[in-house]
């Protein structure tokens, strides 16, 4: 029953919506429910990217800190978003910090487990990659727009 509930939650997240039953069961086998209180870190820069978080409620700030400059947030991710895309590519390390802005409920996917299943079944791997790539590309576009710093001079 608990696994069925979890499968429903994973399948209800936009990342895995419409995924076939067999693949959904494989993905759910790597999943667990997690909670973070506001201010708590989901992960820190430099740590191994062992998990992917499918956000259900709350918001996560992606941050970088530098000595003497404080911490800067460059992106927030809310309900139905995904945090932890570094799990996709070696060396599987977080490049920045992820902090819960408020109380966060999420599905945590064990990245080693999911990568193992994707390697064992290329059809699952392709399906998973197809689902994560649009988010990767959206964030690349967003980052480029941020880099352009377009809000400088309109009067």
């Amino acid at each position: 029953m608990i696994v069925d509930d979890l499968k429903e939650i994973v399948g209800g997240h936009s990342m895995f919506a419409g995924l076939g039953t067999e693949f959904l069961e494989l993905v759910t086998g790597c999943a667990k429910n997690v909670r973070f209180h506001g201010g708590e870190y989901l992960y820190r820069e430099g740590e191994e990217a062992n998990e992917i978080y499918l956000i259900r409620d709350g918001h996560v700030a992606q941050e970088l800190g530098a000595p003497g400059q404080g911490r800067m947030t460059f992106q927030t991710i809310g309900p139905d978003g995904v945090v932890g895309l570094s799990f996709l590519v070696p060396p599987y390390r977080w490049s920045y910090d992820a902090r819960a802005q408020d109380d966060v409920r999420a599905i945590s996917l064990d990245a080693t487990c999911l990568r193992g299943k994707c390697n064992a079944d290329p059809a699952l791997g392709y399906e998973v990659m197809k689902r994560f790539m649009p988010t990767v590309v959206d964030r690349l576009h967003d980052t480029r727009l941020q880099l352009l710093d377009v809000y400088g001079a309109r009067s």
Partner: protein
Amino acid sequence: MSTVLAPDPQLDPMVPTLARITRKIDEIPDVVTFEMEADGWSGFAPGQFNMLGPFGVGEIPISLSGPASKRERLVHTIRAVGPVSRALVELQEGAVLGLRGPYGAPWPVERAQGRDVMVVAGGLGLAPVRPVLYDVLENRDDYEKVIVLYGARRPEEMLFADELSTWRARFDIEVAVTVDHASVGWHGHVGVVTSLLRTVGYDPANTTAYVCGPEIMMRFAARALTDAGVAPGEIWLSMERNMHCAIGLCGHCQLGPVFICRDGPVFDWARLRPLMQQEEL
């Protein structure tokens, strides 16, 4: 369509009338709002602009940012970016300046009646599109969902922050704001304004969008709206170019086959898209 208002045709279009600043509001660093009065001022339509000039310095186009329904109110929001705009921003209450206008094609506000209204603004682009929101909120029952997405560089650079908060408190308008970068004290959204489009619910097939901000931001927003299913002819953008005469004579603001001052500044994306993608224009 909104009524296009124009200066008295009996007057020389290149001769400014005198306007007096009655109130100066410091908005954010380098940005002020002037409330003014001018002889013969008879109102404007949302999206139109005036040519404003401190005497002896020059003239620049500035969009009207107040409510169009209150014809006596003459409101401009100005950022100091060049010599003329800086001279304007430094004027104080009681100062007199030259004014020509109103000019330009307005936002087609009535076009959105019975439809979802999506306003996407970035930086100072909230000022030219604010009259649309005043009009829509004054006639709220004529529209379906009303959504405002606003992006700024940093929290300290958010224009009309108090007014955004007031709108957010209403139940009949959805307001989402974002900044490109923030320190830890900011608890709102961080990311580009187009990322907000993925977080709000609306009916793309029944949406009219009004987009205003830096050109690159407008292009990204128009593309995102089109990708979501909003018809290009229902996405309206306000263009900014180097306008001098404001009446379609001098050609400074020419963009391919159009003069921004005379044919715009408001255009739909179907017309503008091919022009905005040609670097040499």
